[in-house]
């Protein structure tokens, strides 16, 4: 019991440390760049004078670096103040992000279940049929798909199922300009717009889960208890799922958290291709408009999402594997 406690404490301490580093990075990066980018926050060319003066005062931009840092901490942590978006002034960065975040959470939430699930399933099959044609097909496809650019696969899917065979909408999260009769219609519309992006994220992200699960399966299949199960005359499917897969899954679970950052990357590209109005598309727009405050806040927000996902994965791991060595 005490070891579980110390494990959790260690993980919380690590997450806190990561968060602190994130805070510091987010402060340093704009200030360490050439050409006085602290001024980026108060860009005279893009914001009206009153906003510039107000930002200078709140963020202590005319004062020493220590005072700037304290102001930055106060504004970021207490007031969630990231300044104004250049493009959408007078909308603040925070308001903008909050408009976009729900869509990204929806996409990420679904994709972070479908991606590992699909990858692990293929890995189990591939490991079970190792050396056979099925295995060869799965592993070689996985390897090719691993080398495919995220956004390209999304574009190909969009071309095939949006343009050539128009069964899915060409983008956005809901049909623009349509007022929905009732909630049900709205949900159906949202789901229809989600399917292609989810398939795109899943297909670009599943491969590493497959390869790891496959290797873990092969290792597990060499264990004596599998031989015992076979000798007992248990049906193949039962051995595959109950005996081999269950144990092979453990190394994969830790990976789910580690790869969550990649799912975030996948969603940035996918949202860009499908004009899906989440944080990823916002990042793309911010790059085009040199909207630095938005870029910075988006990085901050996505990092926090990943840190939280790591904590959740740790808890899941504790539940899944009671033998875990708390190291």
């Amino acid at each position, binding site marked *: 019991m005490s070891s579980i406690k110390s494990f959790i404490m260690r993980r919380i301490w*690590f997450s806190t440390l990561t968060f602190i580093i994130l805070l510091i990075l987010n402060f340093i990066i704009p200030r360490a760049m050439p050409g006085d980018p602290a001024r980026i926050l108060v860009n005279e060319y893009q914001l009206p004078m009153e906003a510039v003066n107000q930002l200078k005062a709140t963020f202590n931009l005319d004062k020493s670096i220590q005072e700037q840092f304290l102001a930055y901490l106060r504004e970021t942590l207490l007031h969630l103040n990231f300044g104004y978006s250049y493009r959408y002034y007078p909308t603040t960065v925070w308001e903008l992000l909050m408009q976009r975040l729900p869509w990204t959470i929806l996409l990420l939430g679904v994709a972070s279940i479908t991606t590992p699930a699909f990858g692990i399933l293929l890995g189990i099959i591939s490991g079970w049929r190792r050396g056979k044609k099925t295995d060869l097909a799965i592993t070689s496809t996985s390897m090719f798909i*691993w080398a495919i650019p995220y956004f*390209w696969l999304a574009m190909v899917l969009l071309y095939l199922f949006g343009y050539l065979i128009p069964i899915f909408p060409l983008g956005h999260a809901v049909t623009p300009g349509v007022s929905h009769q009732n909630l049900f219609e709205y949900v159906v519309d949202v789901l229809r717009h989600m399917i292609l992006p989810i398939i795109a994220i899943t297909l670009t992200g599943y491969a590493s889960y497959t390869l790891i699960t496959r290797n873990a399966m092969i290792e597990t299949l060499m264990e004596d208890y599998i031989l015992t199960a076979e000798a007992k005359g248990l049906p193949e499917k039962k051995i595959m799922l109950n005996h081999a897969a269950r144990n092979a899954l453990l190394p994969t679970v830790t990976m789910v958290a580690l790869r969550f950052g990649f799912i975030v990357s996948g969603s940035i590209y996918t949202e860009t291709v499908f004009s899906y109005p989440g944080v990823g598309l916002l990042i793309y727009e911010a790059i085009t408009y040199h909207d630095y405050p938005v870029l910075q806040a988006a990085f901050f927000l996505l990092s926090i999402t990943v840190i939280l996902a790591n904590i959740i994965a740790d808890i899941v791991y504790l539940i899944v594997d009671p033998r875990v060595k708390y190291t």
Partner: protein
Amino acid sequence: MTKLMLSKILENEIVAALLNNRKGCVGLIIVIFFIFMAVTADIISPYNPWEIVGPPYSPPSSSHPLGLNDIGQDILSELIHGSRVSLIVGFSVAFFGTLIGVTVGLISGYYGGIIDDVITRGIDILLALPSLPLIILLAAYLGPSLFNIIFVLSIMGWGGIARIVRAQTLSLRERAFVESCKAIGMSNFQIIFKVILPNIFPIILAETVLRVTGAILSEAGLSFLGLGDPTKKSWGMMLYYANSRFAIFLGRWEWVFAPGFSIALLGTAFCLIGSALDEIANPKIRRER
């Protein structure tokens, strides 16, 4: 002992060993094909990729097999020239990333103690942050240039290899032959670089080659988001324009297909070589196939 022999094989007959492996052979042929393309781009491309040679958005024709882009440049010529950026970024980032990763990993694994704790914690944090948003942020602030892309991808991409090298070094450090090197009075520096490094070289090589694929994909991704070097033709940037100028809705599939397929093909080639090297370095994997 086997590892020592392997590093000898790798030093002397790396190409021969690769050619004996079917995966390695295919990968090598594809890579050589693209290197040839990059080197002779000025000679073999039918047009200057920057020159406006016809009306914008022209569909494929006999003189322009892939058609023209949104400002009337020949897409096939762009494609041929684009191989340069991918190869340069791929090789440079893999090289510099490996250099940093191996050095950090060796120091961390060999010295242990507080140095190791701090470095390991640092790598954990580096890997815990979502890399793409951080890379985008850095690239956006630094401004779009090939050098900046290589710089950002290199300093962000050494965590994985450092971790592997550290683990290997940690186990090698305890072996008898390292002990005996210490006994005959070799310095730490000599032991790290002359004894330990050659022993983990095969693993490093495989990882480095796999890193090339990662770097090619990252560069393409940054260019696709509009952070690429505007003075160089790259596959990612071709896709950026294809996407922002709605090539898909105009039915211009070849404009989308060609650059993406090239990235995937080159990426797969390095993957194949990497996994072939892995098989050569780890006979255990080889036996299972």
